């Protein structure tokens, strides 16, 4: 394992979502994210294939961010499409959830 300043670099667990994250599908996304966080402290959700994000989806992201914080972990989003990014920006969520354009940029 690579170590830096005496601390282990904890790898990210990457989950991939696709299609819509809304009131219909949000529960499934939330279950998957929370299950991953129970196993790994750092979870990133790849949004490359997500075409639609509603307020129900935003609540899923917020709940996951809170769970990650409560476990001293981290939660991030990867490469949202323009329309999804617009909703993240409009809602103010892009200011509290880290967003990277590529897996390689997860810190």
């Amino acid at each position, binding site marked *: 394992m690579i170590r830096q300043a005496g601390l282990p670099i904890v790898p990210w667990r990457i989950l991939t979502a696709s299609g819509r994250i*809304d*009131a*219909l599908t949000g529960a499934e996304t939330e279950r998957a994210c929370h299950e991953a966080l129970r196993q790994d402290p750092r979870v990133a959700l790849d949004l490359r294939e997500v075409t*639609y994000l*509603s*307020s*129900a989806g*935003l*609540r899923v992201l*917020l709940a996951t*961010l*809170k769970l990650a*914080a409560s476990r001293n972990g981290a939660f991030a989003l990867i490469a949202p499409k323009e*329309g999804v990014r617009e*909703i993240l920006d*409009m*809602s*103010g*969520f892009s*200011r*509290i959830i880290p967003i990277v354009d590529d897996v390689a940029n997860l810190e």
Partner: protein
Amino acid sequence: MKQVKKLNTRKSGPKASRQFGLELPAEVEALPVLAAFAQTVAREAGFPERSRNHIQLALEEITMNILRHGSGQGSFVKIRATLGDGDLRLEVLDTGRPFGFEQAMELYNGIASPDQEIGGIGLYLVKNLMDEVHYQPGTPEGNRMTLIKNKEGM
């Protein structure tokens, strides 16, 4: 999911506005039908993809809000879309409990915080996605939410 009850169109003249209607169960499973309706009327109105997606999201947020806070199981939501020369007007009618529109619209101000419960995000999005949002509780047709998207500047 119950069957969608009706989908009708009315066109009363070459220059008159066109109207489309949809009546669907106030159930989350109706979302795909609602999405298709929103995309169809927005396309008919001549909106580009980005605006069509805004209209779809706004309509879904309003309908989900009715589902969560107003209409109970077994009730229906009526949607009327009027395509005018310069705008698209969507009226969402329900017969459930009216809600405190003004307060709900102020619940969220766009500043997200991981430390607190956030309510009103859906209505906040609607306010930003559409040009006008009006609510009239208790009309003869039920509670009426009106969403307007202008073609100008789209």
